[in-house]
C-alpha cells in the first residue's frame, strides 16, 4: 500500500512515481474535522479508541479514506524507525531478530514486518494503523450502576477505598492481595465510581479462562451496563462498551481508549512478554488515566518499590475467611531425580502421598517438568489407579480439572500450569523438587495459595520436598509468614 501527499492529505496511490509506503512519509498530515460530514456511525463504533488494520475491518478502502479526508479517521505508521532501530507501534517490539522482510505485493518494495504480534494480523512498513478522531459514541449510563448486594471484609474494604480514590484521581495503585483474599469484589466500588462519572474502563487479565469467568460475575454486578468480553476469537470484537474485560493481548488493538485500566496478575508472564504487555497497557490507556494493578505476588522490583515508598499500594494480607495462609514446610528428599530414573520415589514423598490416600484427602502434587512427572505417575498409580497427571498441552486438561473438582480424582500431578487461577476447596499441596529454578518465589507463593481456600476447610498442608533449599523457597515462605503477621497486627485474622 502506497500513499502520496496532495493538498495536505494522504492519498492512496500505488502507481505514482513519488508515492511511498507509510513508514517512509516523514509526518502524516491529519485533515481538520469537517463538521458537515455525515460520518458512518458503524465506523465510529468500531474505531473509537482502537488501532486496527484494514484487514481487521469490514469497510472499503474508499469509505475509510473519505472519513480520513474529512478528519474522522486517523492513519498512523505501523512501524517507525527511531534511534537507528525499528519499532512496532502496536506491540513495541524492538528486537531486530523479531522483524523480517518480504517482497510485498501491496507496496512493491522489500517490506519489513513484525513477527512479535503477527498472530494479530501482520503489520509491515506499508501498513497504516487506523484510529478514530471524531466524536465518541453516545453511551447511556443508568442512574444506579452497581447492583451487587454482598459485603466486603475489613481488608477488602480498605483496599476498595484506595482503588476508588486512585480511579477518581487518575493515579496508579497496586493491590497486593493474598491468594483467596477476594480480589474481584475489591474492584466493584472502583468500577462503579468510574462508570458513574462516565469513564471507560477495562479489566485485563492474562488468561482467557479468567475473562470467561469474570464476565458473568461483572455483568451480574452491573446488569445495566454493556460489557464487552474480549479474547482470541470472541464475538464482542467490534463492540464498543463502557466496561471491557479482555485478555492482556487484546489490549494491543486499543489506543488511548480507557480512563481506567485494571491489570490483573501483572507478574504472570516472563519478563520479555511482560514488557510488551506493559507497552500495550500504556498505549491502551488515555494520556490521563488510572492504572490499578492486582497481584498476589509482585516481583522483587515492585516489592522493593513498595517498601521504599515509591509505589502506592495496599495489601490485603488475609483471606476473606479470616484464617491465616498455610505456611509451607520444607522437607529434604535427597536426589529424587536419580531415584525417579530407577522408577522410585523418595520414601518421605511416598509416605506423604500414602497418608493422603489413606485419609481420603485430595492433593495437588507439583513437578518441575513433564517427563519427570510422567515417570512418577505409574509409581503412584500403584496406590490408586485413578491418579492423573496434567500439563499445559494436555488435551484432557479441562476434563481432569473438572474431575478433580467432583472428587473423582484423589490426587492430581501437575506442572506449574495449575499454580494459579484454579481453586479446589479442600486440598493439601506438595511440590516435588522445589529447588528447580522454575519454582520462583511467586510460583511457590501461588502454589501454597492453593491450600485452605474454603471457609469450611481453611487449613491445608503445604510441603516443599527439595534436594537443597533455595533462596526462592525461603523468600516465598518469608512472604507468606509476613502476610500472616500483618493480618494479625491489623486484626484481620481470627486466630
Amino acid at each position, binding site marked *: 500500500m502506497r500513499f502520496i501527499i496532495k493538498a495536505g492529505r494522504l492519498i492512496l496511490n500505488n502507481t505514482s512515481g513519488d508515492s511511498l509506503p507509510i513508514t517512509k512519509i516523514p509526518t502524516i498530515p491529519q485533515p481538520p474535522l469537517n463538521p458537515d460530514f455525515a460520518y458512518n456511525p458503524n465506523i465510529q463504533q468500531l474505531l473509537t479508541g482502537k488501532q486496527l488494520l484494514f484487514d481487521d475491518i469490514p469497510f472499503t478502502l474508499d469509505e475509510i479514506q473519505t472519513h480520513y479526508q474529512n478528519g474522522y479517521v486517523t492513519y498512523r505508521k505501523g512501524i517507525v524507525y527511531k534511534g537507528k532501530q525499528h519499532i512496532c507501534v502496536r506491540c513495541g517490539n524492538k528486537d531486530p*531478530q523479531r522483524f*523480517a522482510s*518480504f517482497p510485498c*505485493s*501491496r507496496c512493491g518494495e522489500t517490506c519489513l*514486518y513484525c*513477527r512479535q504480534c*503477527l498472530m494479530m494480523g*501482520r503489520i509491515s512498513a506499508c501498513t497504516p494503523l487506523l484510529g478514530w478522531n471524531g466524536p465518541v459514541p453516545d453511551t447511556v449510563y443508568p442512574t444506579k450502576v452497581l447492583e451487587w448486594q454482598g459485603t466486603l471484609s475489613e481488608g477488602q474494604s480498605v483496599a476498595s477505598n484506595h482503588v476508588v480514590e486512585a480511579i477518581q484521581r487518575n493515579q496508579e495503585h497496586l493491590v497486593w492481595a493474598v491468594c483467596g483474599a477476594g480480589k474481584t469484589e475489591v474492584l466493584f466500588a472502583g468500577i462503579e465510581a468510574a462508570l458513574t462519572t462516565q469513564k471507560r474502563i477495562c479489566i485485563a487479565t492474562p488468561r482467557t479462562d479468567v475473562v470467561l469467568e469474570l464476565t458473568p460475575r461483572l455483568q451480574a454486578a452491573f446488569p445495566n451496563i454493556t460489557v464487552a468480553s474480549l479474547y482470541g476469537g470472541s464475538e464482542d470484537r467490534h463492540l464498543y462498551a463502557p466496561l471491557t474485560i479482555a485478555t492482556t493481548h487484546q489490549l494491543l488493538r486499543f489506543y488511548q481508549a480507557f480512563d481506567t485500566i485494571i491489570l490483573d496478575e501483572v507478574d504472570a508472564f516472563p519478563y520479555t512478554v511482560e514488557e510488551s504487555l506493559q507497552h500495550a497497557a500504556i498505549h491502551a490507556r488515555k494520556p490521563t488515566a488510572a492504572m490499578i494493578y492486582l497481584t498476589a505476588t509482585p516481583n522483587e522490583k515492585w516489592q522493593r518499590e513498595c517498601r521504599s515508598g515509591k509505589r502506592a499500594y495496599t495489601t490485603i494480607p488475609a483471606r476473606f475467611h479470616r484464617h491465616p495462609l498455610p505456611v509451607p514446610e520444607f522437607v529434604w528428599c535427597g536426589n529424587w531425580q536419580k531415584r525417579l530414573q530407577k522408577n522410585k520415589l523418595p520414601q518421605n514423598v511416598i509416605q506423604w502421598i500414602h497418608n493422603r490416600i489413606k485419609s481420603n484427602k485430595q492433593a495437588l502434587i507439583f513437578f518441575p517438568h513433564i517427563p519427570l512427572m510422567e515417570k512418577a505417575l505409574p509409581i503412584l498409580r500403584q496406590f490408586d489407579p485413578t491418579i492423573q497427571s496434567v500439563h499445559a498441552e494436555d488435551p484432557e486438561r479441562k476434563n481432569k480439572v473438572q474431575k478433580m473438582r467432583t472428587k473423582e480424582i484423589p490426587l492430581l500431578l501437575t506442572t506449574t500450569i495449575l499454580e494459579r487461577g484454579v481453586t479446589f476447596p479442600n486440598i493439601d499441596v506438595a511440590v516435588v523438587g522445589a529447588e528447580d529454578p522454575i519454582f520462583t518465589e511467586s510460583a511457590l507463593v501461588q502454589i501454597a495459595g492453593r491450600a485452605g481456600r474454603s471457609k469450611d476447610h481453611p487449613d491445608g498442608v503445604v510441603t516443599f520436598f527439595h534436594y537443597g533449599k533455595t533462596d526462592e523457597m525461603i523468600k516465598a515462605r518469608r512472604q507468606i509468614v509476613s502476610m500472616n503477621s500483618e493480618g494479625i497486627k491489623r486484626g484481620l485474622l481470627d486466630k
Partner: protein
Amino acid sequence: MNPFQQDHCLICNNIIQPTIGWRAIFSIEKEQLICSACEENLKKIEGETCRICCRSFYQLDEKFRKGEWCNDCFRWEEDSEWKGLLEKNHSLFLYNEFLKEVITKYKFRGDYVLAKVFAVAIKEALTKMSPDLLVPIPLSEERLYERGFNQAVALLMESGFSPAEILTRIHSEKQSKKTRSERIHLPQVFKVAADSNLQGKKVVLIDDIYTTGSTLRHAAKLLKAAGAASIQSLTIAR
C-alpha cells in the same frame, strides 16, 4: 550488533543450543535456523510411497492402495482425460499437525521468513530433478493482495531459484473450502501467458501442499497442451 546474541528458532523462537564437537568446529558451519525440537517434528517423507503422488505407505491400510499407487492416483490414472499428465510429485515432509501449524503461520498469517526453513531441502530436491522451468502455482489477484506474497514463489526465491510465473488464476475461490469432487470437476482455473515458450520443456510445478492433486493436475493439463514435454511437481507437504 551484539556479537554474543543467540540465535532463536524461526519456528518456536526458543534459543538454539549450538552443537559443540569436532564436527561443528572443523566443518563449514551451516546456518542453524530452527531448534532441534522443531527439526524433530518435521518428518521427512521416507520409505515406500505412491509412485506418483509421494504419499507415504507407512502405516497406511492396504485398502487405500493399489499396488504401487495410492487409490487416488489410481483413479486419476484410470481416467483417460488425466492419465499421465502429472508424471511425478515430490513432497518433502509429512503433513502432520506440526507442519500444518507452520504452514498456516507461513501462508495465512503471512510469516514470509518461514520459507527459509525449507530452503535447503528444496534446493536439494530441485537439483536432483534438473528441470528447465520452475512454475509456481499462482494466486488470484485478490488473494495475492490479501497475503502480500505468493507462498510458492517465496519458496523458490528463498531457495535461490527464479520462478517462471507463466500461470495466472482465473477463478478465485479458496481450494481448501472445497471437496475432492468439487475440485476435480472444476473448469480450468488457470491461464498460460501467451508469450511463454514451453516446447519440449521439462517443467516442475511448485506449491506448498499436495492435498488431492487436482490443482497440480489442472495446471499440468494446461502446460502440457501448451507444449511442455513433461510435468513434475514439488510441494513441502503431503
